[in-house]
């Protein structure tokens, strides 16, 4: 009898569990939850914002004073933001009201339906003003993010180290780079170049940049990999990184360093050149509170084959997940962030180069942009990494690239083997 009862209890528990398991797990669509403008009271609401960068606290206080909405900004590393968004959105649970939407997330997140399209939610004037930078955050005619950081790759160098080495100008081509590095080494700079090579997103970005700067592309229009041929730019780019390590141009420890620590080394005066840096880093490197080399950091056009090379943009946007609790307050926050005055403060205090064309033009004219002419000139060489938009499988491609490129620079696999494996993975992903 006792056994029978135990059996019944077990069966009931198991049945309940199975019923819950069976009933749960639909992949439902998110519903837009925006109220018509002017008909909603957001005062007193509290929103959470998930970003990889700090936002000056007094700015947030200003927003709270204006709107009555309290903002909690949760700052964590870029890779951690990516993981958190994937976990929360897959589980269809709330993560924040406003989150980071990097260009590289856009393809996958849009396909999965995790974010609200913003083209009909935000002020149309703002949408038009952002349209150029927002192209990388747009899929199928829907804009999923409002670009807040007009990030692109450009090179930085330490002017004092260049003068000490007798170098008058930054090399325009890779052929000119060798003699410059030799002079820097002779003047006492042990490892002149700073290139992050860890198995992280920051560690693969230099390879993307070098591939473009060496005159190539990663994929053709059908996403066929173009980097396996030894003569291809992608192959030469990775070989360049391996050789830079072998020749002592780059510190051996770079194989375990992400872009943050590599920038810190540059700002501490340990390296003279950062290949794949950003306009935001320029202002930080020239801030005496943040850098010991201020004001010697100089911007430079990324070198190329016969002159300045091509570079690429990595715009980052603010987006509203379909699971957000306070969508109207989130919209108000994004629109406040995109005001010219806020964007100016964010550039000066957090190094975020604005994406709004009107603000960028006005700041360039008034000389507010650090390294003004070079930063402006480099913009002319910016192309998207994926002309046809970031594919929905970019995350998997990038993750595979992180491991394989890191293995190649460590010497665990050859350049050819690493790129062949990466191409095979990309082909598999593109075909799936």
């Amino acid at each position: 009898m006792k056994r029978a009862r135990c059996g019944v209890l077990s069966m009931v528990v198991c049945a309940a569990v199975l019923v819950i398991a069976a009933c749960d797990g639909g992949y439902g669509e998110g519903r837009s939850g925006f109220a018509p403008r002017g008909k909603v009271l957001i005062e007193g609401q509290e929103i959470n914002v998930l970003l990889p960068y700090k936002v000056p606290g007094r700015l947030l206080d200003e927003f709270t004073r204006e709107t009555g909405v309290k903002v909690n900004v949760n700052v964590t590393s870029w890779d951690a933001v990516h993981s958190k968004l994937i976990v929360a959105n897959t589980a269809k649970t709330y993560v924040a009201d406003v989150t980071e939407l990097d260009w590289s997330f856009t393809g996958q997140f849009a396909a999965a339906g995790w974010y609200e399209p913003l083209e009909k939610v935000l002020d149309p004037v703002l949408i038009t003003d952002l349209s150029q930078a927002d192209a990388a955050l747009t899929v199928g005619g829907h804009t999923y993010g409002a670009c807040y950081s007009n990030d692109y790759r450009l090179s930085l160098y330490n002017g004092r180290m260049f003068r000490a080495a007798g170098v008058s100008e930054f090399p325009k081509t890779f052929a000119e780079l060798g003699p410059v590095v030799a002079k820097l080494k002779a003047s006492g700079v042990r490892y002149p170049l700073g290139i992050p090579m860890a198995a992280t997103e920051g560690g693969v970005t230099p390879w993307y940049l070098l591939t473009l700067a060496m005159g190539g592309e990663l994929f053709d229009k059908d996403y066929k990999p173009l980097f396996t041929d030894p003569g291809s730019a992608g192959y030469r780019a990775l070989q360049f990184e391996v050789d830079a390590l072998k020749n002592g141009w780059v510190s051996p420890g770079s194989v375990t360093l992400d872009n943050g620590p590599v920038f810190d080394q540059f700002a501490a005066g340990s390296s003279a050149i950062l290949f794949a840096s950003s306009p935001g880093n320029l202002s930080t490197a020239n801030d005496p509170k943040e850098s010991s080399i201020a004001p010697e950091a100089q911007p430079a056009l990324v070198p190329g084959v016969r002159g300045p090379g091509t570079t690429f943009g990595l715009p980052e946007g603010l987006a509203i997940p379909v699971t957000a609790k306070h969508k109207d307050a989130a919209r108000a926050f994004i629109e406040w962030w995109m005001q010219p005055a806020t964007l100016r403060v964010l550039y000066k205090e957090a190094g975020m180069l604005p994406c709004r064309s009107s603000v960028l033009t006005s700041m360039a004219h008034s000389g507010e942009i650090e390294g003004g002419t070079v930063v402006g000139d480099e913009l002319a060489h910016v192309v998207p990494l994926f002309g046809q938009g970031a594919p929905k499988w970019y995350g998997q491609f990038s993750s595979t690239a992180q491991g394989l490129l890191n293995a190649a620079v460590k010497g665990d696999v050859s350049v050819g083997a690493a790129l062949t494996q990466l191409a095979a993975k990309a082909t598999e992903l593109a075909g799936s």
Partner: protein
Amino acid sequence: MGLDIHKRETPTGGASSSPCSRVDVAAREASRVGMLMVAPAVIITAVLVIYPLIKGFRRSLESGDAAIGGQPRFVGLGNYAEVLSSATARDAIGHTLIYVALAVTLELTLGLIIAVALHRFFRGRGIVLAILILPWALPSVVSGVLWRRVFDPEGGLLNSMLAQLHVVSHPHVWMASRGWALVFITLVHVWGVVPLISLILVAGLQSLPEEVFSASAVDGATPLRQFRHITLPLLRPSIVVALSIGTVGALKIFDEIYVLNGTALNTRSILMEVYNTTFVNADFAHGTALAFLLTALTALFAAVCAVAFGRSRT
């Protein structure tokens, strides 16, 4: 048994008042109360453990299309086959087995040496015990960060020491070579776990009957023979417990690798591959399949340890 119950439950005049029947009713009542008391724990376990397990297993049998906006399809054991055919996952399994073999060997050897040393009473023993516990009390991420400063290629303690001793002429990037990286990561893990293993073994040693040692000493047994023929066999239950904890801990190694070498392929463990596949690639289907393979591996080790524990007690 079933017939007996049936007989006792059959109302036959006057039988209900017999002492036997009263005992039976009381037993049934006690059983009912017991089941009621246990029910919350069973239900909570079912909801928090069994339900996620079933849901996770179901996910491991479906395609990973949901993360890119598609509908998941039933693929049977396809994800498991694909995971096992992936070179990265196979490497991760190999690395994990190396971590387990190295870590368990070092933990048991060092743990036993420390336990034997601490078993004898000496001045300051309490302080030594307190200091010994410190590495175990530190979160593994914190100990990883501490050790990163030791292995740092530029200005790290290890390179500085070796350079001063003229063993190396230029800084070595310890995490770049697979062999060194696996060894050093294991050492950091062992550093954190050895205190616990030592404490388990000290407790085991203190429970051994003193008279056995006295009798063997009278019979002329040397301390070495006593250790070989008395201490080790009697300590077997504690060793098996320590072995289980060490094995399961090494199978789950993650923090130390992540802090010291990130997600680099040359040191990636199974759990790290699960993390990378699931949370970086957003490939929950293959990630869950790999997680279930790790669970099976852990269960296998746990079963072996349980059998060994059972034998050691008999």
